[in-house]
């Protein structure tokens, strides 16, 4: 059950996997807002 192991690793890093995902997303959103990430192609 790799999901469970990943969740354990995330928790060992101090926060749950959910919270790490939220933090990473917010950091990306901040980088977009302040103009560091200007154009993200798709």
């Amino acid at each position: 059950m790799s999901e469970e192991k990943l969740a354990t690793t995330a928790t060992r890093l101090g926060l749950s996997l959910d919270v790490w995902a939220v933090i990473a997303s917010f950091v990306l959103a901040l980088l977009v807002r302040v103009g560091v990430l200007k154009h993200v192609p798709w």
Partner: protein
Amino acid sequence: MAGSVALPSQEAQNPFASIARFIPGVLLLAAIGFAGKTLEQSINGYAKAHHLVIPNIEYVLWAIAIGLLISNTLTIPKFFLPGIATYEFWLKAGIVLLGARFVLGDVLKLGGISIGLVVLEISGSLLLMTLLGRLFKLRPKLTTLLAVGSAVCGVSAIIAAKGAIDADDEDSSFAIAAILALGAIALVTFPLIGHALHLTDNAYGLWAGLAVDNTAEATAAGALFSDAAGKVAVLAKTTRNATIGFVVLGYAIYWASRGQAEKVKNKGRFLWEKFPKFVLGFLVISLLVSFHVFNKEQVGALANLSRWAFLLTFAGVGLRTNFREMSKQGLRPFIVGALGEVLIAVLTLGLVVGANAIWKL
């Protein structure tokens, strides 16, 4: 996807060493996702250049198919496994960033309809799975895990419930295998049924979000129909995910009352611990977009970041689906799961068609 990714103790003390272990697998996810995207573009480009009319096969399907091919024909080296498991992380980050594509009005409208349908779906699913589990004489805790997995959010719900009701590893493995196998089937069948019934993007998205159990598969099943349907599927599925704490708490109290699980001392804390925090992240981003904190170009950039995160997720869905491993888990939980899922799919389709008739989705 089987395989251990437990951390040695000295690595647990060094976060950088822990993070480095994820890099090979993440690169593999990115390579597969990018290959899927390139295949879609190349085939479309070729068809256009040669005036051929061929159906568009979305990058979602290519990424999943390449992942499936690899995981079911090759032995994936162990050093890839920790990174492959991060598809769950990319899924959640993708959902948070997807909030940029919803203004709060959409969330309230579709989310409001979703909440009503989710309550009906969860009640119906729990009842159906419990009855089927008893009919097929499954172990009671295995029935609980299948019921929670099919009613709320697949693997995450099973893992959350496993701890709360003191279920065996064997039972949770059975339940997870059944839910994953059925999710793989839903990926193929749902878009076909949706197109055959000429469902609108919103109606199909709601259906996929309500009926497909695992969040990654629900997102993929939605995106396989259309981009707009994928968006709605995530919203409906996220609404379902938000109820996880309440359902698991209910079962924890039930099993504790029978002396077969530990009592829940602080119910408020239990609910908060089980609550999927990425739902809050999604709402915050949606709120910021609604209040024009981001300009149009920035909203586009956030939406594209969300698409990239989902691309890694879809590659991971294929890579962790190993039919040989699943078949080892036995047939009975799969039959119960399959019967339940068909009934839940019919029930939720009826709910969505009814909602469509009333609210013109």
